[in-house]
């Protein structure tokens, strides 16, 4: 289905602060997560400081973009008007190689074919001129 991105009517993130930085990397076609410069712990969603060691020093570090499916739900009846025409669709939690998890969708696997631990890799989708969302597709194991 082709869709003019200017007509994209699904909810979008608000590009403020660290969330803008996260999505700006996505727009450039790379998935980055924060990593503590002191104890090396990865984190997502973006946070101001490291909850593990208390350090304020961190950097955006490129992810491998690869992970495995941790869990998902299949929405058979949308509970938000923007997703009425999308059902059935599956919000999926992916656990990245780095250990962080993110909520996303897997674009090339039907909801009934999803499996826990299925390997996936990031596949970006520019949904508006401003915003690119990280989605995923099936990867070789």
């Amino acid at each position, binding site marked *: 289905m082709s869709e003019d991105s200017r007509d994209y009517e699904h909810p979008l993130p*608000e590009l403020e602060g660290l969330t803008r930085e996260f999505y700006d990397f996505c727009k450039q076609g790379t998935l980055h997560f924060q990593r503590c410069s002191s104890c090396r712990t990865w984190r997502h969603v973006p946070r101001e400081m490291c909850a593990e060691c208390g350090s304020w020093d961190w950097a955006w570090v490129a992810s491998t973009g690869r992970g495995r499916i941790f869990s998902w739900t299949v929405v058979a009846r949308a509970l938000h008007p923007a997703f009425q025409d999308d059902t059935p669709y599956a919000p999926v939690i992916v656990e990245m190689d780095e250990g962080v998890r993110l909520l996303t969708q897997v674009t090339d696997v039907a909801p009934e074919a999803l499996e826990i631990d299925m390997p996936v890799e990031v596949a970006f989708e520019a949904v508006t001129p401003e915003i690119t969302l990280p989605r995923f597709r099936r990867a070789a194991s």
Partner: protein
Amino acid sequence: MTEPACIVGIGETDYVRKPGSGMSALGIQLLAASRAIDDAGLTGKQIDGIMPFPNLGNAEAFAANLGCENLRFASIIHMGGAAPVASLRDAAAAVNSGAANYVLIPGGWNGYSGARVRQTVSQDVSSLPGGAIARDYYLPYGFTAPPQWYSVMARRHMHEFGTKPEQLGCIAVAMRRHAQLNPNAVMRGRAMTLEDYLASPMLADPYRFFDCCIETDGAAAVVVTSAERARDLGKHPVTIMAGAAGQPYPADEMTNRKDIFRTGLSLAAPEAFRKAGIEPSDVDFAQIYDCFTFEVLQQLEEIGFCERGEGGPFVEGGRIELGGELPVNTHGGLLSEAHVLGINHIVESVRQLRGDAGERQVRDAEIGVVTGWGDFGDGSIAILRR
């Protein structure tokens, strides 16, 4: 050990769907509050503490309508559906510290005829502490509402422990059976079998329609005071043996928890039982916040009624039904009585401990547990005694 406090008043409105309550969102709560104050043998002037439900009212408006001209204690706990039971703990502390003499805990809404429960967060991200995270990282992917959020936990439980849809169904069926004995239950007169449950359409797989609480108009309220004042009122006080609340980690984002089954109740329950000096095996009934079936199973495990992973077999065979080892949600719960934010669970607990539960009375009920669940897994628990 802190001195226990007591619940001395309970009040409810009718619980309805079509055509709706016909009252304002504040009015319906005031009706339940008036009934609770009256049940306690008090007047509005004597209420000097109010703990409204988060985002559904402010103490000032309650006080101005109820005539609480001596309001000294006003506090709101931002834990969604875990707030009312957490408020029991804080109301007990307030009356025992002297911050207030009589604390009103009201709550209610037009959850059917007004803004639907399901729309809460997508309409107003400030309605929960993780709302901005949901807006920026969940909603773009259609992860927009509680049944979707929690169903990923249910799926994980099925994967790790072999929990079956039929076991979730046992919970839905038990609540529905109990509702048949409750004149105020919205689902009274609408029996449901396990076959009916399994045939209900998927909403957010693995959640079917019948895994989900109902959306209703209604309100409920309770009044808390000190044990000493409760004795003076000459009513049938129910003692708050212990109350506790807790949060999962992180509480504002639910996908990055090392242990996704460690919720707020995992912290709160051991604290409550330690303070009360009893064991889960001493409990006669449990009113468990049942926004969805799996949350009941999960809370039964974290309270310690069974081991983690054993919740599925635990809820089978009528164990959680009236007449079983641990009757759960004897009023029908959010699943089959009404979604009144879990305040109806407190009201039902008091009714059971007063011996006023009619056809659904748990025989010789002496100790009951009531829980709350809210936002992305906040939890609260109170242990109550006759």
